[in-house]
């Protein structure tokens, strides 16, 4: 099967898993899931995965570390988030910084 078809299979599977996860919460008795350890791990899971996605997206190319125009772009994004700028402004500003630096031949 082609890579394109496998991507379709993964999308369908991700949809099924997503719905089953949501449905499970509505169906199982509360005490099954409300264990303190389970709750703590679940709450840190979101932070750990999203920040790992951020780090890999910002500082790697393929299988090596890379520090290029993205470093300046995410620095600008961080300042904007700290100044409470809306999400879409942060995303567009980061794209603009990286695009401008690359147009100037850096990164």
């Amino acid at each position, binding site marked *: 099967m082609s890579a394109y078809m496998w991507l379709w299979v993964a999308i369908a599977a991700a949809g099924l898993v*997503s719905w089953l996860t949501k449905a499970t919460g*509505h169906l199982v008795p509360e005490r099954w899931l409300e264990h303190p350890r389970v709750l703590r791990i679940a*709450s840190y*899971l*979101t932070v750990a995965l999203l920040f790992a996605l951020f780090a890999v*997206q910002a500082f*790697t190319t393929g299988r090596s570390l890379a520090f290029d125009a993205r470093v300046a772009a995410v620095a600008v994004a961080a300042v904007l988030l700290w100044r409470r700028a809306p999400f879409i402004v942060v995303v567009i500003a980061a794209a603009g910084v990286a695009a401008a630096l690359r147009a100037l031949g850096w990164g």
Partner: protein
Amino acid sequence: MRSLRLDPVRQQAVSVSLATGAYGLSLGALAVAAGLDFWQTMAMSLIVFSGGSQFAFVGVVGAAGSPWAALGTSALLGVRNGFYGVALAPILRPMRGWRFVWGAQVTIDESTAVALAQPAADPQARRTGFWWTGVGVFVAWNALVGVGAIAGQYIGEPQAWGLDAAAAAAFLGLVWPRLATRKAQAVAAAAAVLALALTPVLPAGLPILAAALVAVAAGWSGPAVELEPTEAPV
């Protein structure tokens, strides 16, 4: 025009729904830049329908990770929604048939946050908040994912447009509201160091999945925490 005036719960639901559209627009464009086509982007958005899981799937595919690493990361980022269902079940019961199918599908951060923001003494307002926000976000989010995906097709070289930097900024923006505590910041830092350290030695996508181990280690012991839904897609 009197009928167009909405009560406060519905107003909140509509404003939250419209606000998430901006995230959807970003996701649609980034999904196409990562290599999904328009139909894959739309199918994923409609059936996965959980912002964090969708951004994660696209992020792993964009980083040349395998579809299975993308599936695993998106599944783990959806675990939160299971706990939202636990909090919502007493409010929404009984749900049967298609009502259950849809109720589960729109059990996400925004619908949970708006539902639980209503007084506990007013279950009708909580139900209204859940359904209006859930269905409102579903419509606004998927419509704007579509617009973003179409716009993304007209963008030539993604790097020249800085879309790789935009994806990084999007993840930072999604996680930002959850970085308020010292412990969360420490978990984030450790997850980043682990993922970057493993990047040269593991196939793409797996270093991100490995960061889940940081959450297991951090959550193994300590004081009790609550899982707080946010009005953003994560």
